[in-house]
Structures are given as C-alpha cells and as structure tokens.
C-alpha cells in the first residue's frame, strides 16, 4: 500500500520488520537455528534472501550459526543471525571471536524469560548484561534496543551500518512483545536509506596491514578472495594480523578496540525523551518498558507531577554522560525493567549519587503497565 511521501506503508510484525529491514540494509547472508520467539526472522529470510541473490542456511546449532555468519562476513557479505536466550548463550564464544577479530555482523536476540528454558513465549529484559558481557574477556560491543516496530526498522538498518562502520558485532535486543506485535511501518524506498559499508583498503595487497587502523580506530577490511591474503586469529595479534604476545602490542590492541567505540559514541547513541526540561522525576527505560514509561509520564503530568522520561535505544555503549547530566538536574530517577535490576546498575554508575535512583522490577513474564510506573512516580 503506497503511503505518505511515496513510502510503502505496511502492517508488520516486529520480527518480519527486522527481516525486511535487514535486506534493505544490505544483508546477504543469514545463518540461524530456530528458537521462539525469534523464528519468524529466519523463516522470512529463508524466503527473501535468495530472491535478492543472498544466502540462507539453517545450521546445526547456534554455535555453528554464529561461526557461519562470521565466515560469510569475511568474504564481504553483510551477515546476520537471530536467536533468543538459550541460543544467545551458545553464540557467545564466537561473538567474542567476531569482536576481537573485528568482523562485522548483526546478532538479533528476541529476548524471552530465562534463565535456562524459562518461559519460552514470555517477554523479559534480562539479557542486557549478557549482551554486554556474555563472552569472556574485555571486548567492544554495541547493542541497540527498539521499543516499537518502526524503531525495529530504523535500528536494524543502524545495526548493520554500525557493524560495518566500526567492524564490530552489533546486537539488536528485542522484547518478545515487540518481536510479535504488529504495527504500521512506513518503509522508505531503498534510495532513501543510508547504507554504510566496511572501510576498504586503499593500498595494494603487498602493502596491506589488516589491523592497521586509521584515526577512527577502524582498520580497512579486504574481503577474502580478492587478492588480499590475510590472517584472522582469535589470538592477540598485531597490525599484520599475526599472533603476538608482546605486552605493548597486546595493550595497544585492547585499547584500540575500546577507543574505536568510544570515539564514535556520539554517533551511535540513540535516545528519545519527553518532558525532560522541567522534570524532577525522570524514568529511564528501554524496549517495551519505554513505551509504558512514556505513557506513565504523560499520566503523571495530567496529575500535575513534573515527570519526564528517557528511552535508551542504545544500551551499549551505555550513555553515561547523558544519564549523568540528568542525574545532576533531577531529584529522582526511576528505572523500571523486566529483570531483577540490570539497567539500574548502569544508571547508578552514571548518577554517581547526584540523585536518588529507584528501581522497579517485574519478573513474572508480564510487561510493566504504565499505571505501575505512575504509582512508583507518585511514591515520593
């Protein structure tokens, strides 16, 4: 159905929207293993990817899926996988490999209630910390978190672009409810979508140093099979890509991996807020909970309470400065989340005691309703 501004207005489920956006973002390879509530992404891509000459494969497990995604990306294909809790756990070792070897890829985690098999069809927001620290060792990672189906579209495109720009795995965290809800989305024409591709070497193969980064900290990445023969290893490596144990080189690599994300932090931090200017109570939330938060501050305003809210669409890197600024201006920050308290730890780190930080956890497999947050706001 042609919609406003010549855009295609469609009623899409979050998971469907993610798959459609991935193709428009240039995704040409998907490997996955079925798991509720993410499976629709794989199903749709098995249909759509070959239509555009892309490849879909259902691997034997999530470990293999993550590995295949990295392998395909090494050849230059924009690649992704989609999963949920138990599968996200299995992917972790190879996510660390992608992060350390700087292979761009997108990992969608449509969260369900854990731990273990948990409640396979119920929402939770309890993989926030796993998205950041699921794999062993220090490592760079980016995680985005939509709260609506149109945001799924936008952030899926951004996930691919950031993965390519920074050569980093990007995790798209979704809530089960967002993955399964249907909303209207205006799909822009391909030509309106900004597409970023990984930096390419501008030197001949004999001069190529696969891990020599420019000022942005991101090394150019030659696709396999194009004359640039280079080595990829999960061991510490120097600019040549070959293993090293030399302490200064080990130190330099780890620090570069962190600084490439830090120096791009402003470009990759996405938030949205309401009534912040004069608020004395601010709700900080993400995903589906941010929708309730938005509604709750409107309800509070109707009651004459000066409440505001911030939705964090970028969870990692965590926007410490932004939340810290707010903490310096308000009396209270409320952090509602569908877990036992994960986001709140980061908010407290950012607030550094400058305001009161109050958590609200719901862990029964049900989303947090606006009224629950209003009650928390009123409880001064």
């Amino acid at each position, binding site marked *: 159905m042609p919609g406003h501004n010549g855009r295609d207005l469609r009623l899409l489920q979050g998971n469907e929207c993610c798959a459609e956006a991935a193709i428009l973002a240039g995704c*040409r*390879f998907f*490997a996955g293993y079925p798991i509720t509530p993410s499976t629709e992404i794989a199903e749709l891509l098995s*249909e759509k*990817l*070959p*239509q555009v*000459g892309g*490849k879909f*494969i259902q*691997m*034997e*497990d999530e*470990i*293999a*899926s993550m*590995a*295949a*995604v*990295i*392998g*395909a*990306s*090494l*050849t*230059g*294909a924009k*690649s992704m996988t989609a999963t949920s809790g138990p599968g996200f756990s299995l992917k972790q*070792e*190879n996510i660390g*490999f992608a992060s350390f070897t700087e292979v761009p890829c997108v990992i969608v985690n449509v969260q369900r209630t854990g731990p273990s098999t948990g409640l396979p069809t119920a929402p939770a927001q309890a993989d926030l910390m796993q998205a950041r620290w699921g794999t062993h060792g220090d490592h760079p990672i980016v995680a985005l978190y939509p709260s609506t189906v149109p945001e799924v579209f936008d952030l899926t495109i951004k996930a691919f672009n950031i993965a390519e720009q920074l050569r980093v795995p990007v995790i798209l965290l979704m809530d089960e409810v967002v993955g399964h809800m249907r909303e209207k989305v205006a799909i822009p024409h391909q030509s309106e979508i900004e597409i970023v591709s990984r930096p390419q070497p501008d030197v001949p193969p004999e001069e190529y140093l696969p891990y020599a980064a420019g000022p942005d900290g991101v090394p150019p990445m030659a696709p*396999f*099979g*194009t*004359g640039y*023969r*280079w*080595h*990829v*290893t*999960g*061991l510490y490596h120097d600019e040549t890509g*070959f*293993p090293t144990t030399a302490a200064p080189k080990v130190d330099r690599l780890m620090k570069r991996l962190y600084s490439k994300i830090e120096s791009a932090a402003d470009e990759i931090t996405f938030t949205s807020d309401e009534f912040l200017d004069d608020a004395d109570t601010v709700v900080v939330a993400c995903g589906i909970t941010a929708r309730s938060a938005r509604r709750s501050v409107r309800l509070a305003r109707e009651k004459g309470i000066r409440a505001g809210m911030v939705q964090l669409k970028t969870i990692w890197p965590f926007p410490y400065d932004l939340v810290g600024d707010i903490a310096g201006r308000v009396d209270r920050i409320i952090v509602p989340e569908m877990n036992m308290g994960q986001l709140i730890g980061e908010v407290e780190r950012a607030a550094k005691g400058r305001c009161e930080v109050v958590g609200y956890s719901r862990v029964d497999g049900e989303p947090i309703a606006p009224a629950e947050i209003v009650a928390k706001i009123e409880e001064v």
Partner: protein
Amino acid sequence: MAVPIDDYLRTQFMPHIWCPGCGHGIILGAVLRAIGRLDLPKDEVCIVSGIGCASRAPGYLDFNTVHTTHGRALAFATGIKIARPDLHVIVLTGDGDAAAIGGNHLIHAARRNVGLTTVMFNNSIYGMTNGQYSPMTPRGRYASTAPYGNVERNFDMCELVRAAGGNYVARATTAHARQLSNYVENAIQTPGFAFVEAVTQCPTYFGRRNKMGTPVDMIEWFRKNSINAAAAAKLDPADLDGKIIIGEFYRGDAPEYTEVYDEVIERAKEAAAR
C-alpha cells in the same frame, strides 16, 4: 619448481611451533604439494582451522587464512564456502577439534555435502593441552587424563563421514606421505564434502606416554601396522584389531550444497518476479 612449497609458506614465521618430529608438518607438506600440483591460485584458497597444535597450520600459509575457535572450523568454513562458492576452502583440524568438540559440525558438513576439503590431523591425543585422551585415543592407551589406560573406545571417523553423506573419504598416515598428498589432491578435486584422515605422530605426548620411542619409531610403527583397504577387506575383522586401514574408502557424486542452493536462488527469483 612445479610444486613451489616455499611460495605457499609465510617463511618469516618459520621455523614453526611444532615439536621436533611432530607429524603435523609432514601432513602440511602433503597438503601443500597437493595444492601445488593442482596449481590453485593462492588468492582462491582459503584455509580454516580450529584450535590445537594442528590448527596452528594456517598462520604459516600464504592464503586467505582463519584460525577460529575450538571445534568450529567447519562451521566457519561453511559460511565462507556458501558466501563464496568459487573459493577452495580447506579445513585443517585436529582429532579433538573435529571428533570431540566439533563432531556435530563434521556430521552436518558431510550431510549437507558442502564443498569443503577437510584434513583431520589424527595424533590420537590433545597435543596443545599437553596430552589428554581424545575420542581417537585407542582403548588402553595412556594419556595425562588416562593414567590407568583409556577406558573409552575410539571411533572410525572415515566411516562416520561416509555414513553422514560426504562425497570423498580416505585415510593415510605420515608413513605414507605421498599417498596422503594424492588423497588430499583428490579430495580438493571432489565436488562436495571431502574428508581425509591423516594419522600422525605426537612424539611429545602420545609417544612418550605410550613408550613409542622416537618420531622415526612411530612412523615405522605406522608403516608396520597399516593395511591397505583392499587387503583388509579379505581379512577376518579380528585380525584387524589395532591395525590402521588406509586407502580411499569412498567416492560419491551426490550434488554439492552450493550448486543446489544456486537452484534455490533461481526458483526464488522466479517466485519474486511473479
């Protein structure tokens, strides 16, 4: 030279890390000679390994090389091959890497019949982690985690790959390096999944624990205890106990995965056009 081995090596990193007399270098030489005889362009060869002594091989090779995570080489290689079917993707893996932690990936790579060449360096032990038993350690042999002799049986990976659907299956030992190289050559030329088991010596751990003597003694042991598949077929199975059966066991012509997937792309494009 028609077989320019040095041209395939990143000679700046030599000598390699393998112990004196380790058979892994013999296998690697056999692989490189096979690539040399086939005259594959270096840019079109991709070598993928997991973790272990054997899996350190790619670092020394002047191709597109990936040293991945333990056991997962075949899954990475599957992604590479499917995204770039024109590349010659060769997986170099250890027996722990391929038969233990990566066993499931091996089964499924063979079942899918993805066009990968896999060379399993079987030293019957976990070399890199100092000599624990592997799924390929024969019952009764000693290892650092089998101080009273290994309780478990080892298994026949060639039969496994054949049953799973691979198109090429062969086995040789480091005592049969020429034959081994020919098998690798045939494996590379086979469309579909090809598997070569290379039985090799780890003098440092397997050899020492099991009092097998020098690397030369171990190679001689392989020579004496190997039996050609054709000859083995005529013997009573009981007489084959402890023997290494070598030879080309299977050649199939089942369709290769990426070729079948290309047909899927055509069908999908037709469906989209409708």
